[in-house]
């Protein structure tokens, strides 16, 4: 592995970089520029310099602060639940049973369905009058359940829908991790008469721990940007109780047309995600280092 020479390096990297610069980097700095000016796409007036005013504004904006709280809580719960479910699926599917192969193919189906369709399917399924699940609960217990009314209920519905769609993602990575565990300590323990549960608890789980943490972080980053299922299920409601950061910023920009204010929020949001992303990269590098 030697250096390919700057000329060849450029040939290979420039085409992608052009895309990243034109449609990623320039728009981002455009957003930074807009965030320092008072300007709206709906009122084409020349921008007025605002400095950091807009950043100060959202720091005092209760709705935005609430949204940070909501998004953090949602991401944490969702990442935790999806990772645990993924671990469960991975353990289940590494057992031998009839239909194992079919289930392995089927289990990733939710991951490939458009998130918006997924949200609408669950919204329909859980709707108190139109839905099949409340109907079943009603006919068995006689209770009327509302999955889409009031804050804790909507939060839970969003959480479960998100996990239905994304737990397979966690499963895929954890399963790959489980298959790549070193065989020697596991076989040695089995020879010494350890039960399957003991092997899992004392050997596989500790070896798997870094991978679980990475999956948790990846899912956390993904959940932090949640938009589609909120659009499909609650539209941010009731009130703004389920508005995620992506959703609040979208509304600010395209419903209330506060383009530059939304840009300031978006820039802040970007750096928030990047910090988590940076932690992920550091953890990953450490993990890869420890595996070698």
């Amino acid at each position, binding site marked *: *592995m030697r250096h*390919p020479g700057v000329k*060849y*390096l450029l*040939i290979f990297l420039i*085409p*992608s970089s052009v*895309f*990243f610069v034109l449609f*990623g980097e*320039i*728009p*981002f700095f455009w*957003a930074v520029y*807009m965030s320092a000016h008072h300007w709206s*796409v709906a009122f084409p007036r020349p921008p007025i310099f605002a400095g950091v005013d807009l950043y100060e504004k959202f720091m005092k904006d209760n709705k935005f602060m609430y949204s940070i709280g909501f998004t953090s809580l949602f991401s944490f719960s969702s990442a935790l639940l999806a990772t645990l479910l993924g671990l469960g699926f991975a353990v*289940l599917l590494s*057992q031998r049973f009839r*239909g194992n192969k079919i289930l*392995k*193919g089927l*289990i990733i*189906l*939710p991951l*490939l*369905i*458009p998130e*918006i*369709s997924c949200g*609408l*399917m669950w*919204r*329909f399924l859980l709707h108190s009058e*139109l839905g*099949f699940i409340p109907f079943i609960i009603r006919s068995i217990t006689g209770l009327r359940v509302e999955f889409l009314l009031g804050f804790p209920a909507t939060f839970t519905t969003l959480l479960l829908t998100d996990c*239905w769609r994304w737990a397979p993602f966690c499963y*895929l*990575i954890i*399963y*790959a991790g489980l298959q*790549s565990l070193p065989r020697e300590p596991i076989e040695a323990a089995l020879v010494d008469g350890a039960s399957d549960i003991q092997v899992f608890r004392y050997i596989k789980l500790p070896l798997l721990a870094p991978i679980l943490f*990475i999956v948790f972080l*990846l899912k956390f980053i993904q959940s932090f*940007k949640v*938009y*589609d299922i909120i659009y*499909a299920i609650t539209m941010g409601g009731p009130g703004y109780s389920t508005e995620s950061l992506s959703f609040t*910023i979208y509304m600010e*920009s*395209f419903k209330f047309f506060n*383009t530059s204010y*939304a840009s300031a929020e*978006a*820039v802040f949001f*970007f750096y928030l995600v*990047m910090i988590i992303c940076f932690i992920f*990269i550091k953890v*990953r590098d450490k*993990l*890869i280092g420890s595996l070698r």
Partner: protein
Amino acid sequence: MGRGSKNGMRKKLIIYPIVVILYIIILLPVFWILLTSFKPTKLTNVPEAIIFNPTLSQYDFVITRTNLWSVLGSTIFIDISTAVLTTFLASLAAFPLTRYHFFGKDSVAFWFLSFWMGPPVAFGIPLFVIFKIFGLFDTYLALILCYTTFNLPLAIWIVMSFYQEIPPEIGEAAELDGANPLQIYFRIYLPLAIPGLIATIILVFIFAWNEFLYALILAGTRVKTITLLVSSYWTMAGVLIGPMAATITISIIPALLACWFIQEYLVRGLTFGAISR
């Protein structure tokens, strides 16, 4: 593995009920939407109607009353263009990232990744303004360029995982014979990675097909994608269950077709090198 059959029986008694519940949880929403899409209109909002005369009237409604064909046409055009363009760019960029060491390689990789990790709204708002200025708003090109950019990091990581499977000795032998990097790429890596590149095309197609937020921001009136159509049936004004069910069913067809053979490839890109294979 000389395990007692009693132990095996007990294990099966635990496993099979869980498997059945899992099947139900995965399939229930899909099955229910499929069932609803074949119901006559007066039964679509009646959950107890499980047995009925199946009809195609919902699909008929979607085809005659909405512009389903043109939406499907533009979605497929946008997604195939995105998939091919993205995979080609990724096959180029992944090559030096896999095969060579150079100064700043990790920074380049992190820079690429930041476009996948970064929130779509942060890019969507300024892209909306920029595309408005250049007259690209609400065009095929806007979505193709945007989808390509933001699917590229994932595609690069997937292609890298395929390149890593090619023994480096082949390239080294060619190097000794005086081949330059471009020749190694075109004569060795590209041909050997073709199955992987096809898998990448399929994956990117599905990711582009599922994309919603960018389509919502950058298109919507002249150019409409399938996810936008899906989202248009349940509004503040009311809900058209039947047509929605029919459109959702259409929107999950690629997923149904792909989920059987794509799982192995999915895991490669999604971990971003977190698990070395």
